[in-house]
């Protein structure tokens, strides 16, 4: 079967690859020849793509499940909270190849991998800090177009909104991947999602779009909204 690569719906910089292994998402490899974490590399019409697996990345699964992340464009500046070793960050780095991604992570161990990644990819700004304290990196981060949070903490929505308030430009977009079980073991995921959504609304995030990604990430939901300042 022939391989076919084309832009995935309206999401600039994200591609769907039809080929031997069915359909999957991909981003254009801005560092050709290098696979970051063992993901498949795909050649198509003189360009190289890296498989952007919806099983490994919550952003990929959110996009695959139909969410259009308007704020994620080739020249966007992104603040990414909970970067870990940079699996998803590397793909965001592909997508915003004309922009910048500030990647915040507080555990030293994954941070080492992230520093390694940042030494190869010139649009990644690694920040070793606790996302609960934006004042720790307000000297580095400036106005961004998109804030994303994947910190899997009980008060993740609060951490997320603090950062939105501090760094997101008016009309910017913000997205959080909520892990129900890290917020409450006792409540049903649907209940947790509803409460978090209400909190985000109260804090001023508008036009919320929700996408349940539990199919690929157990008890997870992504919520995307717009910030008018």
């Amino acid at each position, binding site marked *: 079967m022939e391989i076919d690569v084309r832009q995935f719906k309206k999401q600039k910089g994200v591609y769907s690859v039809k080929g031997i292994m069915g359909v999957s998402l991909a981003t254009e490899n801005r560092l050709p020849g290098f696979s970051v974490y063992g993901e498949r590399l795909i050649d198509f019409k003189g360009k190289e793509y890296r498989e952007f697996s919806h099983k490994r990345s919550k952003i990929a699964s959110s996009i695959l499940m139909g969410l259009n992340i308007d704020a994620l464009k080739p020249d966007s500046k992104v603040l990414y909270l909970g970067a870990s070793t940079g699996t998803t960050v590397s793909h965001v780095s592909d997508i915003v190849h004309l922009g*910048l991604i*500030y990647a915040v992570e507080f*555990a*030293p*161990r994954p*941070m*080492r*991998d992230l*520093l390694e990644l*940042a*030494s190869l990819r*010139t*649009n*990644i*700004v*690694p*920040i*070793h*800090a606790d996302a609960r*304290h*934006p*004042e*720790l*990196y*307000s*000297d*580095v*981060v*400036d*106005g961004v177009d998109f804030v994303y949070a994947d910190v899997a903490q009980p008060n993740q929505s609060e951490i997320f909104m603090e950062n939105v*308030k*501090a*760094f997101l*430009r008016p009309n910017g977009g913000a997205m959080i991947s909520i892990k129900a079980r890290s917020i409450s073991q006792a409540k049903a995921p649907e209940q947790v999602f509803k409460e978090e959504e209400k909190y985000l609304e109260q804090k001023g995030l508008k036009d919320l779009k929700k996408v349940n990604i539990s199919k690929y990430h157990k008890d997870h939901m992504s919520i995307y909204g717009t910030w008018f300042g």
Partner: protein
Amino acid sequence: MVLVSANPYGAFVLDIRGNLLFSISFDEPNYKSQLIDSLHPMSPEKVITDSQRIVDALADHFKVDLDLGNEILKSWRLSRLSHLKNEYHLQIDETDYKQKVRDYAIALSRISVRQHAEGRDTLIAQAIHAIDELQKSFTLLGGRLYEIYALHFPELTSRIQNPATLARIILKHSNRESFSAETLSTFGISAEYVQYIVQHKDESLGANFSVSDLAIIEALAKSVYDLYQNKMQLEKWIETVMNEVAPNLTAVAGANVGARLIAHVGNLKSLAFLSSGKVQTLGAEKALYKALRFKGKTPKHGIIFQIPEVGTMPFWLRGKMARAFASKIVIAARLDVYGGSYLGPEMREKLKEKANLLRKQFPNPPKEASKPNKQSSKKNRSKRRKK
């Protein structure tokens, strides 16, 4: 009142309308004292900043407020490059700016990662000692709790193994008359025992205790249970921190054994610089000195004996396995000290394979080898005494 904004180019001092007064580069080795000296003549009653870096530099000398919501600071933050160009007359473009931001962030992150890896390992060592002390106290006080409560309800204490369980039961209901099958079964006690205990609650051989007697016992039970919980918390904490500080060592030796090795020598770095032969006998020093003094067999393993793949090996292979683990432990510790790649899980896998292979290759003890036992060392000792 003055405002201080921070960015990769330095500290920028603004008046309350946002006009730039002056700036000092963070590249200046003594930027802190320069900043303080320049602010002093203005004797500001308050400094407002949005950056922890500025708080750290000034808090000892001025009243500093941290305020991320301040509109002027926020405007500097959200469109920094245009402010730097317009007010600071910086002649750079977007690409230069990004480069500067990145270099600045990478330098700070490197320092920070290094700082966090150092020091926390000595905390681990302390935590291990604390765990051992908690365990000791737990055993002692737990034993006391058994003895006291046996005076009241011996048919219960004889059926409960773990002091923590006993403590929890007593905290739920201290007077034996209030025991019920329903509550007892929530403590993971077998149905047979539950029945036995409930049957005896009204015809126990134990003495009747007054309410104030029971209150004292409850207080003791609380102490026992707190010790237990404390210990569990510490163990969990060690697991997390070990994975951060020494992920390779943790993968190879496990969090507990890894932490004990670190605790034994004081810190991760010292462990990484030991020979593998030394690592093999860490924690078996007593046995080693005895062996040297009395010309007995030298011990083959110390702390690393607690690794399942070593401890469960038949005795004639244990030494081999301990040696294999010790050499990988040293490599793993060095990787962790120097921030190398994450090879721990792979190494552990290989060691497991080796264990299986050895078992297949040498299913029986070699003829000349004899299990080291107390008798032989006693013999040695008496021989020496006679001399």
